């Protein structure tokens, strides 16, 4: 219980790890948009090469990338099958009332490839960026919008506190569970309804304790002069380096390739 990892971050010191979180967020966003610009198979060569180079640079094994795909296998399969049967066109094979068309096969494969690239691209971001750095990046990117009412600092602070207290509350859950089991509580048998009911003696103390912690923490933060994001400085300021510029240039080439494949060929 003590060694839980949050998110799927894998610590490392590769070029990709070192990139400014803002760079990575922006590039991931651009990458996702560009995937939707592409409209034929040849166009995929660009994002494929891009992601391949990025993965190699990050030194993260393919195993972890594939792991990110696993929970989405059903959606990927469903996408493929639906496209396969639903699209009208030249029939290649018939099973009862259903028919597989050439266009369906083409479109299905096309969509699956897009989905896979989408997932791999975003997991590369979360694999190489710790949640806390990611939070800093998001805060910094949202800051210009705080003038129009986006609570950038507050959102980031909430994320930080949530991340900070996940292990603490996990430990607490474990403790309460054991205490209730010692009193004869049963958390593992019965049907779903019964099991949900059995969770009540776990959740009530957990919630009460969480509220007490919130009260304590608020007081501790206040006595350490916390008063929101105004006039606040940071020890670690995000800084872009030449590596970030290089990453943006590479993304520029990716964009050029994708746009050319769509509009020129």
């Amino acid at each position, binding site marked *: 219980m*003590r060694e839980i990892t949050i998110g799927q971050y894998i610590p490392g010191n590769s070029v990709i790890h070192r990139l400014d979180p803002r760079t990575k967020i922006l590039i991931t966003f651009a990458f996702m948009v560009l995937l939707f610009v592409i409209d034929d198979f040849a166009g995929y060569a660009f994002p494929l090469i891009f992601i391949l180079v990025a993965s190699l640079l990050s030194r993260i094994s393919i195993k972890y990338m594939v792991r990110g795909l696993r929970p989405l296998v059903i959606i990927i399969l469903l996408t493929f099958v639906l496209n396969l049967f639903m699209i009208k066109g030249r029939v290649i094979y018939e099973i009862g009332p259903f028919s597989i068309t050439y266009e369906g096969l083409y479109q299905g494969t096309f969509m699956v490839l897009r989905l896979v690239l989408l997932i791999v691209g975003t997991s590369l971001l979360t694999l190489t960026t710790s949640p*806390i750095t990611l939070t800093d990046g998001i805060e910094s990117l949202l800051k210009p919008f705080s003038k129009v009412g986006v609570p950038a600092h507050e959102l980031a602070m909430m994320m930080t*506190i949530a991340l*900070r207290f996940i292990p603490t509350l996990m430990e607490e859950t474990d403790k309460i569970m054991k205490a209730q089991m010692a009193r004869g509580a049963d958390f593992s048998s019965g049907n779903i309804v019964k099991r949900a009911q059995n969770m009540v003696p776990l959740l009530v103390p957990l919630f009460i304790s969480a509220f007490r912690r919130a009260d*304590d*923490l608020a007081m501790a933060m206040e*006595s350490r002069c916390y008063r929101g994001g105004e006039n606040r400085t*940071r020890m670690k300021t995000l800084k872009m380096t030449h590596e970030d510029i290089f990453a943006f240039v590479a993304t520029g080439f990716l964009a050029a390739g994708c746009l050319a494949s769509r509009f020129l060929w």
Partner: protein
Amino acid sequence: MAAEILAEGVCYRYSQAPDMALKDVDLRIRKGEFVAIIGPNGSGKSTLAKLFNGLFVPTKGKVTVDGLDTRDRDNVWKIRQKAGMVFQNPDNQIVATVVEEDVAFGPENLGVPPEEIRRRVDEALEIVELKDFAQKPPHLLSGGQKQRVAIAGIIAMRPDYIIMDEPTAMLDPVGRKEVINTVKRLNREEGKTIVLITHFMEEAVEADRVIVMSEGYVIMEGSPREIFSKVDKLKAIGLDIPQVTELAHRLRGRGLTIRNDVLTIDEMVECLCPLL
């Protein structure tokens, strides 16, 4: 401007409570002192601590920190920077997911420039002897280590006074020792004024001055030696006395000629040897 925390005729009532939690408290904490406040549960000692850094404002009377009145809301941030506060539960006062980020939290709130924060954080972690833990997530630390992180977070704000509200209550004996040694060092080497609220009498013995509270009143004040020699009075309000003092008291009851202000084991040895 007076360099002291001063409480004058302070009363405090929690909203909706029928009685005053603090009744007419007059206290002076001088700069550089190490003061321990003891008292049974509900005697008002935690309430008093929260009045010292403006978390609470007195219902009657006034509290000033270096001449700044806590009732004046414009002073509140200045007061909290001058009088840092360490709480009981180390888990509930650590904000960040990395030790050094948490230590930086206070100075960040004060708007200190980044390079200066870096310097202060390194220095604070050095003082509490947690340099090697700077990059660790706090939940992997022991209770004593977590409480030292909390103390470092306060030191980094460069306060003159550090008020500790039962900082060792939730720790095991090892953690308790770590924290108390840190506290002593802060007072003796760093010259910080310490207000230590505790219910461990062995900790109060280390202080320059002990304040005893009961039912909202300050009932005794003096050096540890003066206070702990009044064994019967302390017991009457439900307080313990240090083990050695208790032993000396009992031995005297059996007719042994022993001083009544024995506080440490070494002193006890000194007293007993001539009798052998």
